[in-house]
């Protein structure tokens, strides 16, 4: 590290690394604080029982909301259910969100 240009690159890399430590550390702390109260968003990869578990509602309530009979075990992702039912997956997610908002909280 003899040349001034090399020193400058090293110093810049050091500053970026220090900044990265603080930025990512701050973001990790913010996520940690939110972990207890922020509801999980619903994604197309989730199954109905998975959504029921993460939102503490009974699976039957969610099946009713999307107009399907309860099924156990049901590992089908919402994307596959939407394809089978010929409905947009966004519609299913909206119906589930609405049912969760109005449902009594389960275990």
């Amino acid at each position, binding site marked *: 590290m003899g040349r001034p240009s090399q020193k400058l690159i090293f110093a810049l890399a050091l500053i970026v690394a220090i900044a990265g*430590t603080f930025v990512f550390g701050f973001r990790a702390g913010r996520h940690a604080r939110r972990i207890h109260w922020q509801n999980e968003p619903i994604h197309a990869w989730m199954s109905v029982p998975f959504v029921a578990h993460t939102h503490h509602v009974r699976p039957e309530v969610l099946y009713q909301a999307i107009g399907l009979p309860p099924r156990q075990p049901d590992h089908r992702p919402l994307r596959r259910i939407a394809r089978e039912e010929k409905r947009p997956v966004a519609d299913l997610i909206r119906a589930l969100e609405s049912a969760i908002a109005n449902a009594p909280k389960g275990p």
Partner: protein
Amino acid sequence: MREQILAALSQYGSPALFAVVMIAAIGVPLPITLLLIVTGSLISQGVMNFWWAIGLATAGSVIGDQIGYAIGRWGGSELVDRFTRLLGGPERLEKAQSTARRWGGPGIFFSRWLVTPLGPWVNLASGLAGYPWMRFLVWDAIGELLGTLIFVGLGKVFSDRVLALDAMLSDLTWAIVALLAAVFLGWKFFSSAWTKQADDGG
């Protein structure tokens, strides 16, 4: 890609887990931390068996890591030549090999679970530097088992908060990577400055 992988895990369970962790360990960037956390959540819901999942995920990762190591070790002279040029010549390669033998074990171990983004690079570099295969396998298997237990265990405990947990762990991992880079660069920068000062003084 993330949606498809998690949908496959939800639908097919253990075989999907095994295949995805193996491919990721070779070096394909896939959301493995989230996959393991979701596995923990599925275990907590009674969908998957804990020890079966731990065994398959660890085995898949170790096999993928061995493939990465083998590419580095026996990937052909062109790859070795390129690596030698990148390091700055055969003397530097010999120095890197001796450093890898001395510090390779902890490097392999910590890149399995603490600084996971570095994992595939460490596999390749270990192979290129000629790190002994049996020692690589032992450090790798212990590290992967620990990593799998940590992430699946966290997913089991926080089974209803998988996405928030993944976001937190992802940022925490990058914070650790940045901190290690800062410590390394700071040490290099200041040790060089002190050496120069001593030379000038003496």
